[in-house]
């Protein structure tokens, strides 16, 4: 496995599944975090990463870089990062899953999304999960990665609701012992993204802890990173499994990696690096019923 610097590790996790051709709030948050990661890289992997006198001013500089990032700068960072990862075979652009939705598909709208290399994605994501959720020392690299993911609303992609409590406890303990972690945990730049998103997101921030609306104490901001879609099909007189296969064939034709994953009594679909719950439904257009299936994103359970 190739060793990746902080900003690239973060980009592999955070850019995965995001639409590449058009701007979005979720992508704006990710690009800001990449800008911050690039500043922090100047002190990472050296002795300075454990020296608060050097690291904390750099952290402030990173936050300023993230907050002040303009549209032009953001586009440049996105293109540069995507280009580097694509050159290394760690990322590719595929048709966005939203483009498989009946309304978008039939309208001929072109939507593309980033897809990270699955093996690299799993190694980075699961490595981070293991280091945070297991007892033991937390490295600065891991803490910075977690902080960047928190600030860009990616926490739900990595940790379940109960795990988020565990993460919070681990980081609170680590912050009590370590000045750098304490400073980092108190620092935020997601407000810059929120002002862009407007009051609606701020209201959400105060209300929701996770995408399923459970709980009221929001620890991390939540951004819409995944999309629910509707796929229509004409397969009359078939069972649930063959309908699911019809959906899988359609998604494969559109360039996605799709596989069935058993989760207890239900079968989920793993599409690229994300999981979806699938259920048959009927949509009406001009009073005409259209048979199809809904795909709803499933976050960490």
């Amino acid at each position, binding site marked *: *496995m190739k*060793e990746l610097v902080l900003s690239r590790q973060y980009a592999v996790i955070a850019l995965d599944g995001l639409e590449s051709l058009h701007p979005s709030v979720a992508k704006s948050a990710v690009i800001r975090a990449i800008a911050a990661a690039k500043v922090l890289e100047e002190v990472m*992997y050296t002795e300075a*990463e*454990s020296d608060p006198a050097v690291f904390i001013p750099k952290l402030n500089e990173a936050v300023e870089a993230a907050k002040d990032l303009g549209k032009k700068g953001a586009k440049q960072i996105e293109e540069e990062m995507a280009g580097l990862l694509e050159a290394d075979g760690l990322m590719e652009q595929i048709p966005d899953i939203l483009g498989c939705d009946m309304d978008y598909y039939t309208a001929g709208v072109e939507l593309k999304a980033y897809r990270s290399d699955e*093996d690299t994605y*799993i*190694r980075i994501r*699961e*490595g*981070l*999960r*293991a*280091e945070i*959720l*297991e*007892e*033991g*020392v*937390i*490295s*600065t*690299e*891991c803490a910075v990665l977690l902080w960047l993911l928190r600030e860009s609303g990616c926490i739900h992609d990595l940790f379940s609701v109960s795990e988020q409590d565990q993460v919070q406890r681990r980081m609170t303990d*680590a912050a009590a012992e*370590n000045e*750098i*972690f304490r400073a980092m945990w108190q620092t935020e730049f997601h407000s810059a993204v929120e002002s862009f998103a407007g009051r609606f997101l701020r209201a959400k921030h105060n209300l929701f802890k996770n995408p399923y609306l459970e709980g009221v104490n929001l620890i991390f901001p939540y951004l819409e990173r995944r999309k629910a879609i509707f796929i229509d099909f004409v397969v009359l007189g078939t069972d649930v499994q063959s309908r699911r296969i019809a959906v899988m064939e359609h998604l494969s034709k559109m360039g996605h990696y799709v596989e069935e994953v058993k989760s207890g009594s239900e079968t989920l679909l793993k599409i690229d690096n994300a999981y979806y719950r699938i259920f048959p439904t009927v949509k009406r257009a001009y009073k005409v019923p259209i048979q199809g299936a809904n795909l709803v994103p499933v976050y960490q359970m």
Partner: protein
Amino acid sequence: MSRQRSMETIEKSEYVTIGELVRLTGVRYSTLKFYTEEGMLHFEQAEENLTRRYKREESVERITYIRQMREQKITIPEIKAILKSE
């Protein structure tokens, strides 16, 4: 606080953490945790609150072996029985 070990260092180490095993094998953390809890993967732990340490070579070999058996559609209880009998 410590620095994350490079892959080069990990690949030469006698003992690794579960996070490093994830990086070495590409197997999910939750899967390795499950294997550990089911006694399919052995570890050493000096004290209860200290990090679990896995023998690198032995663990990587065992994970590869388990993966091969899973690919042959052998169930977890069967794999456990096979590992126990060896």
